[in-house]
């Protein structure tokens, strides 16, 4: 069974974005718990951008992609925006194939994210 750990980084001084770090694998066994944790976090989060650090996400199947799309939709309805960065090669391949980059802004590293956020 796949494992996934989420780490929530929300600096009160940073009014622009909060970061959620993914470590492990994202599939149907880990999605429900991830959803619950993120929902609880977002209730308290006030920042406009929610940044997912996926540099330690080792695997995401199509259901994992569905999770990102669903999170993106929820955030958009709440006038927030999901941003992704740090995808490793095999996860980036899946995202590229499905076309996630056309829906959710995706960057290589946090510097690019910061630059994107500051322009918005």
């Amino acid at each position, binding site marked *: 069974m796949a494992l996934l750990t989420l780490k929530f980084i929300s600096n009160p001084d940073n009014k622009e974005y909060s970061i959620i770090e993914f470590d492990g694998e994202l599939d*149907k066994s880990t999605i429900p718990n991830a959803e619950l944790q993120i929902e609880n976090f977002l209730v308290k989060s006030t920042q406009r951008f929610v940044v997912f650090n996926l540099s330690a996400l080792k695997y995401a*199947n*199509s*259901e994992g*992609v*569905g*999770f990102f*799309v*669903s999170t*993106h*939709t*929820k955030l958009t309805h709440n006038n927030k925006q999901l941003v992704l960065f740090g995808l490793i090669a095999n996860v980036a391949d899946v995202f*590229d*194939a*499905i*076309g996630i980059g*056309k*829906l959710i802004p995706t960057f290589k590293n946090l510097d690019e994210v910061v630059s994107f956020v500051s322009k918005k």
Partner: protein
Amino acid sequence: MDFLRKSIAKKSFIAFLVLFIVFSGIEYFAIPLVINKYYGLVDGRLLYLAHLIPIALFFIAAFISVFILAFYPLGKIFYEMKAYIAGRNYRKIFTDRIDEMGVLAHFFNDITRGFEKVKIALAEGKRMSEELSVGNDIQRRILPTVMPIVPGISIFGNTRPASEVGGDSFDIITAGNNTLIYVGDVTGHGIPAALIMVMVNTIIFTYSELYPNGYDIIVNTNRILKQQIEPRRFMTCVLLRWNSQENKMYYTGAGHEHILIFRKKDSVCEVKQTGGIALGMVPDISHIVKEEQIPLEIGDCVVLYSDGIIETKSISGEMFGVERLKISVELHAGSSTPEELVAKISKDFSVYVGDQIQEDDITLIAVQRK
């Protein structure tokens, strides 16, 4: 007095003690009085028998006590147990006793209630299994069973769902000079995926008669699908369009796996990204997808597949992957018909994954230019 209520042995002991005291009293106080009163008036032997009456009554009373305390309730419980074992109608045993008989009765009630639940669950499971079997039949009818004869190309496709019903879809539709061949893969598998698969299949079939190209079919299928499904669901798809008048092959990608194109002349397999975005993600994909041509020469072969093939892992946990699939195509495509190619790739795949349980739906289509 709870300690008494909880044990038949204690209750019996107390009952025997009470009876013993009562009948001892009768024996030692009442009987001598009777004997003294009638001494000399009746036969002495009859008076002697008077001593036996309380003893006999003691044993009768003791038996009745044991019967009431143990044998009667035990008989009732056993009667219902026998009825249950024999498959006859049985009744729940109502009792407020908390001694061994009460425990036995409650145990019987709990066990039979549990079995009833299991029985209902099994019946429900059977019903669902029958419905899934019907769903499986419906899906099989939707999927092409006989490969059509199309001028200029040979086609063979096969799909294997991970459960009774699957989320992979493929179809071959001829409309005018166009033959459409598509493979689609809905997120996940099972009933939710199968319902979307059926929905998309119907939409594409309908639009194939309305629109002359893959682009319009895909864009409009997405427009309808986006309104019908929840955000986490989507369907990746790649649609080939063979125009038998132009003898040209086109493709429109919607976030699906790569297309493999085997070039017979060089015996190499190209891996081409389908591009686009999966269906059902955004309301309008008209600016994202496009229809492009795949130049094909005689003997070239296009292979479409779903992620079930490349993401299935071997016993060591390594996925089959695009690279192994590509090697398999390069190895067999030059000397095989589409049907043989699908069979040979399936064999390579089966050898690689061994006895691993199939977790996702698997679809493979080969189209050869002839």
